């Protein structure tokens, strides 16, 4: 039960948070360079967008769930289980961010997900 709740929060809150942050960053515009002032400027511009804060809140929930899971299980078990976020991420990109996800990219996502599932199944 606890394991299921922790992994559900890691995957759903984590993916939801990343989607919100991605949506906010699309509004800030592209970072022009790696200069610290430019990085700070992009981050501060993002901080004015509500989606950024929603994303950070969701990612905080996912982070504490991850801490709980890491206190109980091996990292090489916990991290692969979170691969369910690939399915959630691709669907979220398509439905929430309205991105075009190409067939080739879907195949890649599928292969990655199958691979990570094998990693999960080989936990013993």
């Amino acid at each position, binding site marked *: 039960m606890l394991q299921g709740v922790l992994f559900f929060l890691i995957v759903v809150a984590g993916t939801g948070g990343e989607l919100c942050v991605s949506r906010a960053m699309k509004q800030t515009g592209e970072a022009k360079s790696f200069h610290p002032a430019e990085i700070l400027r*992009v981050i501060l511009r993002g901080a004015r967008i509500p989606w950024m804060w929603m994303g950070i809140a969701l990612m905080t929930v996912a982070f504490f769930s991850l801490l709980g899971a890491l206190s109980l299980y091996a990292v090489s078990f916990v991290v692969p289980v979170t691969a369910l976020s690939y399915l959630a991420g691709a669907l979220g990109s398509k439905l929430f961010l309205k*991105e075009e996800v*190409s067939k*080739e*990219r879907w195949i890649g996502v599928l292969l990655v*997900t199958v*691979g*990570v599932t094998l*990693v999960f199944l080989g936990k013993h």
Partner: protein
Amino acid sequence: MARPLHLRTVLLIAVMVIAGPLGNALLSKGMKQVGMPAFWPIGGLLHAAALILSNKFVWLGIASLLTFFIANLLVLSYADYSFVQPASSAAYGVVALLGYFLLGEHVSLLRWAGIAVICVGVLVVGRTNPRTETASLTSV
């Protein structure tokens, strides 16, 4: 024809692939020392937070994950999320390697096979254009 990956994109994803798993491995080491915290009631939550935040491996893990987060933000400012997330999935391989070599975790043959499949998936995703809007505009 797919546009070749920009050096900046490769660099940012490399930072994500190294800093993310390293952060998770360090957090794992720290949280194994702390143990499963009691998140409820509120007194337990505060005690748990104090225990977690007094562990040096947790702080090192947070620093590494912050590095990952900034690289992630920068790459997301111009590349699609659906490209960035799978491309950073090589991190699964790196986290298994760190678990095996640094933390002494047992990693089965099936799990290593899964990592190989992940790498193939990453290569497939890496062949696609990081910016779909630009791709659709330039193809007109």
